[in-house]
């Protein structure tokens, strides 16, 4: 069947952007079809700013902002948020920290007041801090039972070793006890509203009212030299690394395989993304799914993906398979990748992938969260001003040669980090021929 008629290119909703006199950048996207409003205060640093040995510092500091201000106790704040039917969340990610509140449009002023208050007048109550750490430690203990999470964490730590990204954002069992209340207050003061901070409004909004309010009430961006915590590009790990985490009680192995890829604003990022769709990102359209699930039946699901980041993010293939097929599964994955790298994609695969990216683009603008995410990435990842408008055209023009070059240049099947959580003793001998193995109990 031939269903390939070309699709018209979609123009995303208009983004109004400007800079307030106090130096804060503001983005507004009006989406009036539901009475909801989402507001992000975005700060241009994330967990890469954690001090050595204090993994989790940026994220703990962000969460502490939601646990009490000089005007409201933690409980009062939580009750006020819940009474609005709103959600308040503050997290550090990689490269940025966001304080986010989403609620009903009718409460816009209260939502903004709370967001400003938690940022400018936090109380950092000692008891709240102690309880938060206790909660995190308990959650981390419990997560040892979640084999997909264990696999992800080990993979991330291994591929980013030696960079500011080499630790868990949430903190670890060893780092959390090292973080003290003073660290939090100092971190907050030191990083307060640096250049590059911005406010993002999406939803049913009255631009002028919001801008007037923000201009009147928000403090000025700190006028100082601001160096990114992870400014210089870091070295590429160019050896294979095998880490097996022994979990004798599991009947299936969690497999993670990958290496570093490209920064989001790299000119080859989009060709790499299209290439990835064909290799393993496109579900049943992908070569990995066809081979590993459909033909071999080794797994229920397999995917490869890349994560958009300011600096080089991970390229990751993830799947799971019964203990007995673990080695065969990994071997076959690498075979698929090697073959793809050598032979390249076909013109049919290219056109299908491009149709998917272009055709599904409008659906990336359905929810307030999706739109805010796009705006934040554009700003934090230094994408070109018209990135979102030009995106469909840019994708549509990606050639087969670009895709195949991306595969040759940026896929490194011989230099992968391989992490497996499962019955390590059963499949370890088969992997020994591949080199040194690190076993973690």
């Amino acid at each position, binding site marked *: *069947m031939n*269903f*390939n008629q070309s*699709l*018209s290119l*979609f123009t995303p909703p208009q983004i109004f952007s400007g800079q307030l006199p106090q130096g804060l950048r503001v983005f507004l996207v009006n989406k009036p*079809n*539901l*009475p*909801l409003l989402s507001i992000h205060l975005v700060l241009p640093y994330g967990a890469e700013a954690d001090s050595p040995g204090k993994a989790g510092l940026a994220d703990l500091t962000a969460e502490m902002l939601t646990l009490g201000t000089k005007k409201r106790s933690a*409980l009062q704040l*939580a*009750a006020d*948020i*819940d*009474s*609005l*039917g*709103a959600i308040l969340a503050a997290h550090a990610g990689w490269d940025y920290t966001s304080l986010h509140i989403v*609620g*009903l449009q009718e409460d816009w002023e209260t939502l903004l007041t709370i967001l400003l208050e938690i940022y400018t007048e936090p109380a950092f109550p000692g008891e709240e801090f102690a*309880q938060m750490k*206790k*909660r995190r*430690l*308990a*959650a981390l*203990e*419990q997560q*040892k*039972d*979640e084999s997909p999470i264990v696999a992800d964490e080990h993979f991330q730590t291994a591929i980013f070793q030696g960079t500011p990204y080499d630790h868990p954002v949430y903190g670890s069992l060893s780092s959390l006890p090292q973080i003290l209340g003073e660290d939090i207050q100092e971190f907050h003061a030191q990083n307060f509203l640096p250049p590059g901070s911005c406010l993002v409004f999406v939803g049913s909004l009255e631009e002028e009212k919001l801008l007037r309010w923000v201009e009147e009430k928000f403090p000025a961006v700190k006028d100082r030299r601001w160096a990114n915590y992870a400014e210089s590009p870091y070295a590429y790990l160019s050896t294979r690394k095998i880490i097996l985490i022994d979990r004798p*009680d*599991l*009947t*299936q192995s969690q497999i993670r395989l990958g290496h570093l890829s490209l920064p989001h604003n790299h000119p080859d990022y989009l060709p790499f993304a299209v290439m990835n769709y064909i290799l393993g990102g*496109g*579900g*049943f*359209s992908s070569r990995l799914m*066809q081979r590993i*699930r*459909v033909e071999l*039946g080794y*797994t*229920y699901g397999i995917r490869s993906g890349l994560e958009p980041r300011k600096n080089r993010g991970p390229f990751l293939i993830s799947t*799971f398979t*019964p203990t007995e097929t673990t080695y065969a599964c990994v071997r076959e994955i690498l075979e698929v990748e090697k073959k793809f790298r050598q032979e390249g994609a076909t013109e049919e695969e290219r*056109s*299908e992938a491009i*149709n*998917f990216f*272009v*055709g*599904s683009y*409008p*659906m990336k*603008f*359905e*929810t307030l969260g999706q739109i805010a995410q796009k705006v934040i990435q554009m700003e934090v990842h230094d994408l070109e001003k018209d990135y979102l408008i030009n995106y469909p055209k840019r994708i549509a023009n990606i050639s087969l040669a670009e895709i195949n070059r991306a595969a040759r240049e940026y896929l490194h099947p011989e230099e992968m980090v391989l992490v497996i959580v499962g019955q390590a003793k059963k499949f370890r001998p088969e992997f020994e021929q591949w080199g040194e193995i690190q076993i973690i109990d």
Partner: protein
Amino acid sequence: MNILPNFTTGKLANGLQILIGEDHTLPVVSYQVHFAAGSRYERPGLTGISHLFEHMMFKGTKEVGPEEFSRIIQANGGTLNAFTTTDNTSYYENLPSAKLELAVRLEADRLQNLQITQQTLETEREVVRSERKLRAVNTPFGLLIEQLFALAYEKHPYRWPVIGWDYDLKNLTLEDCLEYYRLFYAPNNAVVVMVGDVSAEQAYRLVEKYYGSMPPQPRPRLVIPPENTQRGEKRAIFKKVAQVSAFFAGFHVPGINHPDLLALEMLCAVLAAGRSSRFFEKFEKPGQAVEVRAEVGSPPFFTMDPGLLQIYAIAAPGTCLATLETEIWREVENLKEQLIGDAELMKAKKQLRAALLRNMQTNFFKGLLAGLYQIKTGNFQQIYALLSAYAEITPADIQRVARKYLRAENRTVVTLVPVSQREHETLGELA
């Protein structure tokens, strides 16, 4: 602001029901086909067939090769998937509205012309068994929840998991699948829903064009035994390797058509929604528990037949589970003894209203809301009354439903007791 589209309804001569909601915000549409097929329609020995069959629906027709369905939809800018629950099996494509006809045509094609073979069944059987290991056996609490339902229900099909028992999965035959296809995948057993940038009239004509010639099928003869009233607490212990202990409890509550469900949903919000909720304040905040939740589902995911309101707790390391459980039941008793204050009720109401509004952002959810209410109750119009029904709930309603349903005699509790690797090995295989 009208947050729900006014659905245009229609029905073909063969019994196929059609719901169309226009929303021209973006040039996209969600196309959904919901079948009255799910684990409640199964019988012992054939558990899991509804879900396994959902996988088989991707195995191709005369025109479309195995797994090619997904490739074609994606190559036209769409995303797609399917899911099976106790009460329905649903297929959907979210795609550019210019491609609507493609989705209609492909869905209609596999409803009439599916080609499945022994070989495709064998591959998919293994894939599903692997999925079961992923979702139940190798997760911290999957088997516990299976045990909870198996214990709480003695007769009704909700006693087995949607994915089925492994032994049944191993023994399902091609004939079973073909029989299931014939009986359940009929136009008179389905609801088609479209939400998005479509004209109701044109969309209706498209469905008529591709489904109109299909004959209706005789309805399957179903005997779904109702559950006996529970007359005393049931308890079980489940041992596995784990870092922390936990319990999962279920209370029998009515199905989707019963007005008490919304009050129960609100009761769950009072107990566990948000950081000012009773459970968070008392148990999670001080680090006594990793998680304490109360859940009964939300529109449109309430179960068709009487389901379980679940209360579960994952203890923090060092917490005594028995004490934690006692304290949790104390909190539940408080709801029966004291009327909740107006402010707390107002808060829960606003939370539920805002949550529904947040979900309403996508065409996909709006389609599910209408389609699942239609397939489960035969009356999707109920969705228009949801927001006003929340608004009418009183403190006395919360107290009444707490007293009526959250009784120890109506409760089933399964406790996870962590064991060492050595003890785990002496206990035998996890299945």
